[in-house]
């Protein structure tokens, strides 16, 4: 059940040395499952002599523990017992402290336990139990127990919850999207409404599903691309998060339906037929969206994509009952086993038996280890082998994002042999793997018909692979978080440095052209900057960041013999961020080394820039969207051909108001608004509202790109 002994031991050590106490953990039968750590001589003596056994037994068997409390091991000698949350019967024992007034009595009581040895020195080392430190002890024990509870098994519940939803998603014959929305809502606090928007025949979009109290009111509401928050996502095609939205002019859309969310997110979801749907949700109580909730939102969007696309495939194939149930079977199998190897076996077998060709191969990228795995059936030597290598190179080394038509299964005709089906496995535009299956014939109708089937399969496989990867990372991330939060408990200054360096490194790396995994590693290195690299390497043997800490620490230590060249960019950024944070934001004091002149310069100018932004902010009470519309605003203002009224109308269009709302806002009729719009379209040389909005954005961004 316990997954990380080493970490728990580490925590025990830290807790012990911080407070001069000895501590250990017992389970529901009173067995000590984590041995005592710490140098509290009195407690160690009592433990050694078996004087605590009875108490452990009594407490375990006869107390119903839900609270942290003190117990007197001997009169005047106290231990603190904290239940480990979520693990009934597990107790963290720490102790002992003694009442100063009972010193003589205690001395008397323990005298017989000591054969030789100095009883007075033991007692003088024992921390005192006073009214003042009582509360602090309770709190610290509680905290330690809480961290331990996170390290003892069962922690990846979010991951398994998601897996369950996915299993449900692929299992259902009759897709009931609303049910999924409600099941998401049930499982996730922090979000209290969710919904889906779909395109209608008249090109307008409609809220087709809405779940959550009050959110029902917007069910059936329609809007055009560009209108309000949701319409904006249709234009940009990018996910968006909005906080404190009540102040935003686009808010009228919700007000109109007497719906008052405080924060909102929205994801575009590409359907198989190429159409976009929207998945949105948010909170009616919280104005901000935490990072955890953002991750959650992303995961929900990913699962919903599967639900929607499985449903659309079901609709398309409604005639082919047999194939449908086969798909459900396969999907069940895929999602029941989120493990790279297993998934690849399933894929290679299914593609092989579906196509009945001479060979099939599945190549999977392991993002953590930067390696690739190939699983195959049939003969893949010679000509076919060279083809596989070419295909892999082709797909996996593509520098930019693959164009959409490369993301669906296709037939490839090879010279002098039969056709080959190439089916990429991707998730959110990122290529995770590739299936290549040989056929026995040239391109024909029969094989073509398999492609949609394979596409859905690849989509589900993509999501499953993603989840499998997350499952692997899950444990590591939890360890990192626990270590990080343990710094907070035991070294406030180191924690401040960690927090600050993470913040500055996050901002800075976002500007640089370096890979996402590297950024992630730099940020983890900052989080755990105060641990020795040996310890980190031992704790996370597969991970990259211990090396960053190692090299970065040498940079910081002015190790003259250390040559940190190009490949050490991660450790250089780490060193910059940590030294900046250590010197409390003093730019002059930021570390300088001859080999990192350039990166230091960039770092400093980033700091300058962010300072400017910080200074400007107080003048503008509203956050990013204001800045965005401000520059868009200026684009409109500076547009030479538009009349001032037209500018006003266009401004409101951009802000996401519909015609009725614009009319109300400007005290004119809806008819007049339409007239203004027609003229605006002419002057901007665009056919409709959507294009008008994107034109303004184009002008704004091109304008800023070429000043």
């Amino acid at each position, binding site marked *: 059940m316990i997954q990380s002994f080493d970490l728990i031991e580490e925590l025990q050590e830290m807790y012990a040395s911080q407070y001069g106490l000895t501590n250990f953990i017992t389970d529901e039968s009173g067995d000590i499952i984590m041995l005592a750590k710490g140098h509290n001589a009195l407690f160690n003596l009592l433990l050694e*002599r*078996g004087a605590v*056994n*009875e108490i452990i*037994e009594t407490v375990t068997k006869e107390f119903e523990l839900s609270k942290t409390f003190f117990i007197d091991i001997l009169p005047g000698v106290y231990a603190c017992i904290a239940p480990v949350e979520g693990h009934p019967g597990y107790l963290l024992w720490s102790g002992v402290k003694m009442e100063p007034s009972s010193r003589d009595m205690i001395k008397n009581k323990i005298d*017989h336990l000591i054969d030789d040895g100095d009883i007075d020195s033991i007692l003088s080392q024992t921390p005192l139990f006073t009214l003042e430190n009582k509360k602090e002890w309770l709190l610290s024990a509680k905290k330690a127990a809480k961290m331990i509870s996170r390290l003892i098994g069962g922690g990846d519940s979010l991951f398994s919850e998601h897996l369950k939803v996915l299993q449900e998603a692929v299992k259902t014959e009759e897709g009931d999207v609303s049910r999924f929305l409600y099941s998401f809502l049930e499982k996730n606090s922090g979000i209290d409404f969710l919904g889906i928007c779909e395109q209608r025949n008249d090109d307008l979009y409609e809220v087709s599903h809405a779940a959550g109290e009050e959110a029902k009111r917007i069910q059936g509401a329609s809007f055009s691309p560009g209108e309000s928050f949701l319409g904006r996502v249709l234009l940009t095609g990018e996910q968006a998060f909005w906080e404190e939205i009540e102040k935003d002019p686009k808010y009228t859309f919700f007000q109109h339906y007497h719906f008052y969310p405080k924060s909102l997110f929205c994801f575009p979801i590409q359907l198989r037929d190429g159409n976009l749907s929207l998945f949105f949700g948010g909170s009616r109580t919280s104005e901000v969206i935490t990072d955890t909730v953002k991750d959650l939102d992303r995961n929900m969007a990913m699962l919903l994509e599967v639900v929607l696309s499985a449903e659309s495939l079901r609709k398309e194939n409604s005639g082919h009952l047999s194939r449908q149930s086969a798909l459900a079977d396969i999907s069940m199998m895929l999602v029941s086993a989120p493990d790279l190897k297993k998934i690849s076996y399933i894929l290679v077998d299914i593609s092989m038996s579906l196509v009945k060709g001479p060979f099939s191969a599945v190549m999977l990228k392991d993002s953590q280890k930067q390696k690739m795995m190939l699983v195959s059936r049939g003969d893949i030597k010679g000509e076919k082998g060279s083809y596989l290598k070419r295909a892999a190179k082709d797909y996996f080394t593509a520098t930019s994002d693959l164009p959409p038509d490369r993301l669906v299964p296709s037939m490839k005709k090879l010279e002098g042999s039969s056709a080959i089906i190439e089916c990429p496995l991707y998730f959110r535009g990122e290529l995770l793997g590739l299936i290549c299956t040989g056929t026995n014939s040239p391109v024909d109708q029969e094989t073509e018909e398999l492609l949609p089937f394979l596409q859905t399969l690849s989509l589900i496989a993509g999501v499953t692979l993603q989840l499998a990867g997350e499952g692997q990372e899950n444990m590591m991330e939890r360890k990192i978080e626990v270590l990080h939060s343990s710094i907070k408990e035991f070294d406030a200054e180191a924690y401040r440095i960690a927090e600050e360096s993470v913040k500055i490194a996050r901002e800075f790396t976002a500007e640089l052209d370096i890979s996402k995994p590297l950024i992630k590693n730099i940020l983890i290195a900052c989080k755990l900057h105060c641990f020795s690299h040996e310890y980190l390497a031992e704790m996370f043997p597969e991970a990259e960041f211990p090396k960053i800490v190692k090299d970065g620490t040498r940079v910081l230590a002015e190790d003259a013999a250390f040559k940190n060249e190009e490949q050490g960019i991660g450790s250089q950024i780490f060193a910059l961020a940590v030294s900046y944070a250590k010197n409390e934001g003093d730019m002059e004091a930021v570390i300088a080394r001859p080999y990192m002149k350039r990166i230091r310069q960039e770092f400093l100018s980033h700091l300058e820039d962010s300072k400017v932004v910080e200074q400007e902010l107080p003048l503008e009470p509203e956050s990013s969207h204001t800045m965005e519309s401000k520059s868009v605003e200026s684009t409109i203002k500076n547009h030479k051909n538009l009349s001032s009224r037209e500018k006003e109308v266009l401004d409101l269009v951009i802000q996401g108001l519909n015609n009725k709302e614009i009319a109300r806002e400007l005290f004119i009729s809806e008819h007049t608004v339409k007239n203004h719009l027609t003229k605006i379209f002419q002057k901007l040389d665009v056919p409709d509202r959507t294009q008008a909005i994107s034109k303004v954005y184009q002008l704004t961004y091109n304008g800023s790109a070429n000043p």
Partner: protein
Amino acid sequence: MKVSTGIRGLDKVLDGGIPQGSAIVLEGAPGTGKTTLGMQFLYKGIVDHNEPGIFFTFEEFPDQIYEDMESYGWDLKDLERKNRLRVIGISPDIFLDQMTSKDGLFEQLVREIDCRRIVIDSISLFEYLPDKTGENGRSLLYTLRNIVRKFGLTSLFIQELSSLDRRKIPFEHFIADGVIRLSLKEHMNIFRKRTLEVTKMRGTKINEGEHIYQITDKGIYLLLASQIVTDKYISDQNEKIKTGIPELDNLLGGGMAKGAVYMLDTNSKANYRHIVGAIYAERVKAGNRILSLLSSTQTVTELKALMDLYGIDIDQLAREKRLYFIEHYNRPFPAGWEGSVFHVQGMENKDYDRFLWEKCKGLVKECKENHKDWFAYYDLSTIFNERGAEYVLRSFAKETAFARSFGMTVLVLCNFKEVGEQAASFLERTSNGVFKTWVDGSYQYLQVTKSPDGQISKPYLLESIGQKPYIRLV
């Protein structure tokens, strides 16, 4: 060589585990946890003892088993990937066919993972299979047992059992090296009690009786009839002292553990005189310093007479200051004993406490320095009567801890029935060992229901004999 079963309690029942290479029948009705026990045997064997294993299932799908066992936190698939475990789904007919073929599947599988343990779930179907020679399942089972022996595999054969009151002993029990039976019993019509009994086991001592087990979230957990929590501090010393009753010494694996506290639970009818007498005399002979607290009914004169039987002159011992008495009743003591008797009548509990700590401790400590061991004979009923139950509950644990820390072996006399259930259970927990003696009809019995190293016994008849120690266990 014993093989751990993966269940701590069961290992104790089997005095360490199953003899290596044995073929054991594990029988029980549906729902008794046979599959779980079987898998726990394999899982723990792999994880704790590096002994790879194979689970053959004739009726279940392996993936069902993977899933079921996940609830105990056992990741079987991971062990399969590491080539330490196989969960094989197979029909019994192919299984038998392959088992007897040279270089067949069975042999291949065993070699592939260097298998040490197997479980077959279940052999019940064999009865209905005709084997090649046309005989019935019995000869198949015989063949099976011989083959697993040939490979040196420690095996569990699971046997379905629908009714527990089979009159004749089933054939499987004759050819197997051991039989473990799981039962599910209605208990007072309220809850069901799961029990495990080892009815046969070649090559090892067994702890007889039905032991209660539970299916927990970590697998099967067995509580020995009268479960004890082993006191590490004591068993570490590992020094045994004789009781003077040879059969009792055998039951205790050589004698009482030095420094342990033993409770002699007697009911009012039982005659404990010779039990106490034998132990007391033996301790005196061994040269122990002895501290006694006699009951209101037991006088010094009586003790003297009892010791005379064993050839011991306590008069002399008292004068030599080898015996000490704590006296609550102000009874007369022979002349010359003055320095050996502490009169505590009328002492407040607080003062009595101080007396024990100061006087007795000093005494014991002093002798300890001269390498003299102590034995205490303590009538707890007296303390209950004179000082109250509350005092006993408060101080007993402390006193036993004191005794242990000085390696003082203690025999406490008490009547559990009289002191009430709550106090009895406290005393039982606090003591390291419990001997129980009682009269049933015209016989008296003695049973060890708890001991520091986990040995418990069945009830023995107590027979009077004509010479020392005047009693014998039958």
